């Protein structure tokens, strides 16, 4: 990767890992969408999706960079020594290993993404939290059960898949002796 891209990716990661998701959603919807009048972000769902994507992308970029560093130039050279083209080496050797190393991290990132999406109701996106609040508000209801149900739904959405990815990835990493790179 060229140096200048490296810097761009670095800055992107640092910025979007540093901003709380809620601030990002409000900023993009109210600030960029309604304030500056950028048409796509006047739409609450689009604004929320974009805000979630920006933050998640920063995390995923970090996860994949660590994974690629763990594999290193050596595997590439070994592949090229057999006569594989650069593209073949990337798809047959680098990518499969990158995914295995990245999987446990991607599992937690997926959970985080689902959980962060719960902020979207604040700008009116009709998600689980939105409907929970609606149910509680009209007619006024004891909030214990609706919030409990919402929590249960989030667990249902995150726990099985995240746990499966984590277990599969960790087992595979151990079996194959793969590790993330430092730095």
């Amino acid at each position, binding site marked *: 990767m060229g140096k200048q891209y490296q810097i761009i990716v670095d800055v992107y990661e640092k910025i979007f890992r540093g901003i709380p998701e809620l601030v990002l959603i409000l900023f993009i919807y109210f600030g960029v969408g309604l304030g500056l009048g950028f048409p796509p972000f006047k739409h609450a769902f689009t604004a929320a999706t974009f805000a979630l994507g920006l933050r998640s992308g920063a995390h995923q970029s970090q996860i994949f960079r660590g994974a690629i560093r763990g594999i290193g130039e*050596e*595997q590439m*050279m*070994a*592949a*090229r*020594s*057999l*006569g*594989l*083209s650069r593209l*073949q080496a990337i798809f*047959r*050797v680098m990518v*499969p*290993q990158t995914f*295995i190393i990245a999987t446990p991290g991607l599992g937690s990132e997926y959970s985080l993404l689902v959980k962060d999406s719960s902020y979207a109701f604040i700008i009116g996106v009709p998600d689980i939290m939105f409907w929970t609040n609606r149910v509680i508000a009209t007619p006024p209801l004891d909030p214990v059960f609706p919030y409990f149900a919402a929590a249960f739904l989030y667990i249902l959405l995150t726990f099985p898949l995240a746990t499966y990815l984590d277990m599969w990835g960790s087992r595979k990493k151990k*079996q*194959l*002796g*793969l590790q993330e790179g430092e730095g």
Partner: protein
Amino acid sequence: MGEQKKEAVGTPGGRRIADIILECRNLWKIYGKIVAVKDVSLEVKEGDIKLIFGPSGSGKSTLARCLAMLTTPTKGDVFLMGECLTKPGVDLNKARAKIGFVFQHIWLFHHLSALGNIELGLRRVLKLPKNEAREQAIQALKEVKMEEWANHFPAQLSGGQQQRVGIARALAMSPEIIILDEPTSALDPELTGEVIDTLRDLAKKGTTMLVISHEMPFAREVADEMIFLDEGMIVERGQPELFFTKPSSERARRFMARLIKLTRRE
């Protein structure tokens, strides 16, 4: 045209060009301020076993990688079967497929089984159909006595077993030459024997090889020529007996003395 080309790359002395498998002429590799390889010329003929040795950092790996075009030389030319690889427009993937390479730190593909490691090149580079690739891969594993471990992943094998798979991976492509960069130096002493035995078998079969190694008994036994490299340069070259009895350069003499002392102590 073909005749002319042969003449153009022919060596003086009238030796037939077809005999030379791999050759470099006035090869240099410079990393910033470091001159890793300095004006090296050598040729490996069919069936030859060349052994390169020298202190750590003397440029052995760099030279080997330049010969296999895994790194691009700064200056000078590399020829494979008379074809110049250092000019623009050469299909380097095709050339690399004909040069087997075994790495010091082995570098098997972690995510593939022993068999998968070998099949990759057979299928994707030589484009063999699935069953044929499998057959050849198993044959290669047999040659290094690893067929029983075909379905194990690299992490499940000992260092010596991994390196034998590494050799099989190179061998399976039916290369014109195999370059081995210190194939035993990363292994525990008790595991070097099995790899050296494998190399001995290859030598007996007449495999063309360029081996970087400090296994002196092995060198003495199989090498046609030994090349002593220091500070990127060929300091001395000749038949093994020359080095074991009376190396003419002071540097080679001292290095040999140290190696032999080390071997005795073990």
